[in-house]
């Protein structure tokens, strides 16, 4: 193993690490705001990559129909709830139609645009538009009713959602894998290192997203409301912040980050309907570095996971998953000695 191989492995690891960092941030965000351990985070990665793949083929992706069904279910549930509270029927219907307007628009555009095989960037934006609303809808249908349940119950719900979304992925995308075209085919070489345009895009988009999230949390009222909810749900509610709204927003961000990550790694690896799960779990390993609470520690953890994975696959490629997931044990051990009892009362 010489310096050039080390360089290549480092670059490879850092590239994957950047994507894991995005996922880890989403996982920390969702946990902080809603106490949901969001196991299905990775499914959005697969949905993003594969929705784009089907658009590339000029086909209408099944995720659109999922959007339709979930939006209808949510609208019906909301309508029933409002009607029970005694809201006049006309208002109930108007509210339901309003909530369906955006999904209907997305579906309409997709049905029109899919056969046209529009440019890659347009299709990518369409993919984000299709997958992002799935986040809040999943929150509404699976979690909102249980928002005050224990972390344990929410975790089991997450596993159920993961099962359902993975199975649906098989229905939508079939069992075969897809590899998306690169956003930027250029290659740059510096010595033995060769840097592809896609790698540069991954780094740039990751950094841009992290900066955007930072600004969102530091500078905007909604971002601050999310942080307040993360610190104390009851207190936030007393200040007039809707915790349900915070839940929707954080799940929307999580779905957006997931889909975006899917777009970023789609050209680098062949994606199957169930590939997202392992990718998401690596985000989890990273997030655990920060105790599911610290954003910077999660991001650093993600780079570490990426490097471990790339060096692991060089030395013992068959065991790279074993290495990545076993590292969670020493990390947990280190955390338990660092923090000892941070036991919560439930």
């Amino acid at each position, binding site marked *: 193993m010489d310096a050039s191989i080390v360089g290549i492995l480092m670059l490879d690891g850092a590239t994957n690490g950047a994507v894991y960092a995005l996922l880890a941030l989403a996982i920390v965000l969702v946990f902080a705001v809603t106490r949901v351990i969001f196991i299905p985070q990775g499914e959005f990665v697969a949905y993003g990559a594969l929705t784009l793949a089907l658009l590339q083929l000029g086909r209408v992706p099944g995720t659109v129909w999922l959007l339709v069904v979930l939006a209808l279910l949510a609208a019906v549930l909301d309508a029933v709830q409002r009607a029970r509270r005694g809201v006049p029927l006309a208002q109930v219907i108007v509210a339901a139609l309003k909530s369906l307007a955006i999904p209907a628009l997305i579906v309409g555009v997709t049905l029109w645009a899919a056969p046209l095989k529009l440019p890659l960037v347009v299709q990518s934006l369409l993919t984000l538009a299709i997958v992002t609303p799935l986040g809040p809808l999943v929150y509404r249908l699976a979690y909102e009713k249980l928002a005050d349940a224990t972390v*344990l119950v929410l975790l089991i*719900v997450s*596993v159920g959602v993961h099962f359902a979304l993975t199975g649906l992925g098989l229905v939508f995308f079939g069992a075969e894998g897809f590899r998306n075209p690169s956003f930027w085919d250029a290659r740059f070489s510096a010595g033995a290192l060769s840097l592809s345009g896609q790698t540069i895009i991954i780094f740039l988009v990751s950094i841009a997203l992290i900066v955007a999230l930072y600004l969102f949390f530091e500078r905007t009222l909604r971002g601050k409301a999310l942080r307040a909810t993360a610190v104390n749900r009851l207190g936030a509610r007393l200040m007039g912040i809707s915790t349900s709204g915070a839940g929707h927003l954080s799940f929307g961000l999580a779905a957006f980050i997931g889909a975006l990550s899917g777009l970023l790694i789609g050209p680098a690896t062949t994606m199957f309907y169930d590939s997202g799960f392992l990718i998401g779990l690596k985000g989890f390993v990273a997030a655990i570095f920060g105790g599911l609470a610290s954003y910077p520690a999660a991001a650093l953890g993600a780079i570490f996971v990426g490097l471990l994975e790339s060096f692991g696959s060089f030395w013992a490629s068959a065991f790279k998953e074993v290495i990545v997931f076993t590292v969670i044990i020493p990390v947990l051990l280190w955390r338990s000695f660092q923090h000892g009892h941070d036991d919560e009362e439930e």
Partner: protein
Amino acid sequence: MSPRALRRYVLIAFAVLLALMPQLPVPEFWITQANYIGLYTLVALGLVLLTGVAGLTSFGQAAFVGLGAYTAAYLTVTYGVSPWLTVWIGLGVTALAALVLAWVTLRMSGHYLPLATIAWGLSLYYLLGNIDALGKYDGLLGIPALKFFGIELNTGRSYFYLLWTLVLCATIALTHLLDSRAGRALRAVKGGTTMAEAMGVNTFRTKVTAFVLAALLASVSGWLFAHFQRTVNPSPFGLNMGIEYLFMAVVGGVGHVWGALVGASAVQILKDQLQVWLPKLMGTSGNYEMIVFGILLVLVLQYARDGIWAFVESRLPRVHRKVDWVDAPALASRPRPPHGEVVLDVNAVRKEFGGLVAVNDVSFQVKAGEILGLIGPNGAGKSTTFNLVTGVLPATRGEVRLMGQRIDGLPSREIARRGVSRTFQHVKMIAGMTVLENVALGAHLRGHRGFPSALLRLDRAEERSLMREAEAQLVRIGMGASIHELAGNLALGPQRLMEIARALCADPTLLLLDEPAAGLRHKEKQGLADVLRQLRSEGLSILLVEHDMDLVMGLVDRVVVMEFGTKLIEGTPDVVQASPAVRAAYLGTEH
């Protein structure tokens, strides 16, 4: 027929039905299904113990099944070791893996264990699939059938008996465990560790034991699986199966031992049907049942969190505990310190939360046979002082001595062991247990029987003594009529009284009561005051935080008043009531 007899007959009828099943012309398909249900029930039982009882969970049970199965397969196929030996080796390997996982994660909050089990489930799957000696993803073939006293168990029908005997034994042993000293400790852990630790339960060890026990059940299931299938490969031990096991437990009823059997049956039959119908519907084959399972799991948690068995249970008549403790020997009790000796000596304790000084160098003493009242406005630091004395919070500075021995810095259960017992400002109890069992938890440190004797039912003599003590304390506090009531059904006042009975069950030297009279009616308060006077005359020391001034002033020997974390004044009730500083603290000053 009494409900108890009815239940017993139903259980016997079920066992007889099981015993007859392989003899009847039942199609082979159903025998195979029943065998799988038995294998899955063993695993689901462990999850009931973990998730429903102890409030932990694991997605990695399938990996423990795999560990048991691969140990059996590898040792019998490669080295020809007897299966009756491999089962013990498998249990040993599993226990070791479970201990490491539990030891690493269970010191931290509850969600790290399930996350670690996900990683563990994945790791083991890839590990099994990549080791040459284990046949990689093809696995191991040609595992011999089990031989039981010369009979080869090589058919579904012959295997059925061994398997279901083990399943029934495990189910009954777990039922026994839940009704024992160890079982009560396990349930106490679910609601958080503070109360359980205050009762003297080593919550960390209890959780670890529960996790290891669940893993061992899975390991036995794996051993049986290997000799039933006669071949192993990694796929039935992957994470998806781990999630399906949890699904079984949740659907059946994660809080009930029999829920494991019901859940395993329901899921196995449903899965079989779905695997027939869904591919027809979709036109291709694939794991489409995942979608149904996932959605069902979410719906069960949203609408029927207690699972199928809870529906059955709520329709069965409730069985009261048999009163079999009347002539049980009394528990040994602690010698009382001579009247007037200093029992508790709090010397300049201080607690800072960041920049906030919650308790500011407070000192006081409690003597044997004395009731000391600790009063002060809301936020004065009374409950924090309590928590410093009982070891729930570590003091920033200062000393706490009990009978001359330093107790600051000790964990709460060690302080409890030395004779300090307490109640809580917000009642902490196990709502699903009877009043009697809740109170018996207080006597945890006066018994010593653990998991093994509970599983084997060797703990009955001690159990009778514990129940006798619990009932005696309940009668003393005036709750003798409601010992069989579920604690969660009591009103707030009686719940507080129950907490006092529980604290008394520990046979304490020092009793700490945090607002015991809140929520009590006038008559109940008088009754409480009488009990406390009686306890004092028996030489008990009591530290009382209370807002009802009539009660405090009429009862206590001395009062310590706190304000803003600082001791304002100490003296007899008369002195304190006359003090202008106390009036100012409560009512404000005139300007």
